[in-house]
């Protein structure tokens, strides 16, 4: 219990709850289950992407190409759906994830085999992947008329009161929770983030582990490519432009340390929900979109400050009474 209260995830959850309750005073109905479900559904894609970004950031890297990967993959599946409506949509979802893995693996391979810093590699692929969309689509849009109805419906269909899109986010979050806490891959990702040198000495291949992290973030980006195109019923060069920074913001707010090694799945989920709640709450209480951006920005800086303070420790345990107390 004590550790729960002390954790940053707990306080983030409290802040989100306070925001919801406060907004509810100004605009009754904001905290109704239906509205909360719709906020969650609006945040589902950001949530999934934040989990992918988290795995990469934990390894002391960053994936700036996620939004471009998403847009490119989204365009690919949209074009395929338009051209061959007979191909079942679940197959397209698998294909989207696979395309994402390929694009992520390209990032990961450059980081692993050539030792180029991740920020440089993904800054490059951010532009490359975005440019590829133009090449394959010839500057065309794919809009609602071209998509099959099941392509559009597979994010909207209701299951136990929630749209499928929300369920995808829940399943991915649960899966990543298991991955990060209960598998040797997850353990290695944390280990190389906290101390790469000691990890090498412990027999962990640091480069390969980073590669795996990039494949995971690529897979989620690709999967979200389908989700995005299906949900907003549009495939274009402009899809999710600039969104990579929102994803990083969600991670930072969720307490994932940019220095690597520190952060949890729960934190990433809450970080995304925080942004989701702010984005829904501010229009409701009549705050202009410009203030919305400023407030999101302030939240990021505040989160970093709080996390930095949280990481300052009370020094080493040398005294005997302190040792028995801990």
């Amino acid at each position, binding site marked *: 219990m004590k550790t729960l209260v002390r954790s940053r995830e707990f306080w983030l959850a409290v802040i989100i709850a306070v925001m919801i309750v406060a907004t509810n005073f100004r605009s009754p109905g904001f905290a109704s289950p239906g509205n909360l479900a719709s906020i969650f559904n609006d945040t589902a894609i950001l949530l999934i992407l934040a989990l992918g970004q988290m795995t990469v950031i934990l390894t002391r890297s960053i994936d700036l190409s996620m939004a471009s990967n998403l847009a490119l993959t989204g365009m690919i599946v949209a074009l395929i759906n338009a051209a061959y409506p007979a191909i079942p949509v679940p197959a397209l979802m698998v294909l989207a994830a696979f395309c994402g893995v390929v694009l992520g693996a390209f990032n990961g391979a450059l980081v692993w085999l050539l030792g180029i810093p991740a920020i440089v590699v993904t800054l490059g692929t951010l532009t490359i992947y975005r440019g590829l969309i133009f090449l394959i689509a010839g500057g065309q849009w794919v809009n609602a008329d071209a998509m099959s109805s099941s392509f559009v419906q597979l994010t909207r269909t209701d299951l136990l009161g929630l749209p499928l899109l929300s369920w995808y986010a829940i399943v991915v979050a649960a899966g990543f929770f*298991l991955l990060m806490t*209960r*598998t*040797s*891959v997850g*353990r*290695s990702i*944390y*280990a190389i983030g*906290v*101390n790469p*040198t*000691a*990890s*090498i*000495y*412990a*027999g*962990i*291949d640091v480069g390969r582990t980073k590669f795996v992290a990039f494949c995971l973030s690529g897979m989620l980006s690709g999967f979200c490519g389908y989700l995005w195109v299906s949900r907003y019923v549009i495939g274009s060069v402009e899809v999710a432009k600039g969104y990579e920074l929102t994803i990083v913001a969600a991670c930072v707010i969720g307490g994932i340390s940019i220095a690597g*090694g*520190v952060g949890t799945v729960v934190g990433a989920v809450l970080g995304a929900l925080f942004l989701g709640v702010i984005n829904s709450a501010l229009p409701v209480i009549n705050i202009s979109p410009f203030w919305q951006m400023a407030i999101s920005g302030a939240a990021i800086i505040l989160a970093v400050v709080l996390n930095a303070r949280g990481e300052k420790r009370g020094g*080493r*345990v*040398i005294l005997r009474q302190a*040792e*028995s107390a*801990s």
Partner: protein
Amino acid sequence: MTLPLPIPKITLSGITKTFPGVRALHEVGLELYPGEVTALIGENGAGKSTLVKTMTGIYQPDAGEIRIDSLPVELPSPHAAFRLGITAIHQETVLFDELSVAENIFLGHAPKTRFKTVDWRGMRERAGKLLGEIGAGHIAPDERLKDLSIANKHLVAVARALSVDADIVIMDEPTAALSFKEIQDLFELIEILKKNGKAILFISHKFDEIYRIADRYTVFRDGAMVGKGLIKDTNQNEVVRLMVGRSVDHVFPKKSVEIGEEILTVAGYCHPTEFADINFTLHKGEILGFYGLVGAGRSELMQALFGITKPSKGAVKIAGEIAVIRSPAEAVEKGIVYVPEERGKQGVIVDLPIFQNISLPSLDRTSQNGFLKLVEEFALAREYAARLDLRAASLDQNAGTLSGGNQQKVVIAKWLATQPRVIILDEPTKGIDIGSKAAVHAFMGELAANGLAVIMISSELPEIMGMSDRIVVMREGRIAAVLENNEELKAEALVRAAAGIGEEAA
């Protein structure tokens, strides 16, 4: 004697410095004379670096007095020492790689213009002049420091010393990273400094250098001054005897173990820059000590055996089978594990819980299809923590909360959990308290008794002589001697082999 006695430039007397649990210096004295080089000699841990840190204002002595030109002085900070004309040149020069040579020389006391801005032109001119004076005219004041060789960086450090008219120059193992030619150049520079009346303290493990350059010597042992005099009145064996001093007792609990079959054979092992022609064998139940000066290539050899660096040629056989080791993971798989010297950086992961540290290299065994079996993982951690008598409130707490000795136990536990055949311990008791030290020693004896083959790198004579069955002495990347450790083996023999002093000098 009709000549007047020379007057020391700086005199340290009765300097005592205590750290929690360790008395690093006990009433030591040292004098440096203008125009002379004094060599400070002693084993690792004799207190040489503590003394240097006291002289440069990094440490404050608990007792004692420092006089410069017969006047008592206080050195409350490195800056104060610098202002009083004391400057130190370290093995790894501490300068700023991204700044220019001139900026490095004048950092903190740059010449100023009338408007209190930095006088860049004057600074470059003066830097060029200073470099010329010490025969380093080939270094351009505008060059980035990072583009210079280590030898040239030393020259910049010397120019920096001269830029404030430092009269006392401390050189802490300045030759450790230099080539033969560069060492000769450095000695010429020291001669110039001597002519300019500088008082020089020269710290080196290499006897040929000391005899080449020094006028006086002072020997430290276990934090005390045990001898001093003029170099010309002594010989190398005399100095080695002072350094080692005691007959080293076999006080450690190395049990007499039946030495078993050969488990590790290293033949013709070479690395392009770090070591060459390494041949040795290791047997079950044996503790093989590796002795040598710091920088003799012992750790580098072990890192190659562990797959961290790549050897250029040579063969490794494990239990008679050729083993190709390209990564630490392959080494662990073949049964070789390595407990590195830098515990905090390479050994424990301080921000992970103890149990995760212990299980990290054994995750294959505590997981199924990639999924961790937490119960088994915890059981494994508990088993090995208990075997090593690890003192921790809970295995869930972060390893960083433990004392140095207990952190070392975590690292050893982690490797034992992989059930290795060969364990390499690199300075296993460096920087840990006496109690944990004894525990680590006892445990090493037990490991050998259980049939494990142990390689122990140590720079401490009592440890190496107390624990080892045989001792490999390395010098400058090569094996200088392999000695049976028995009652007849004298510590002097090890020191001589490590420092390259031939028997015929005796």
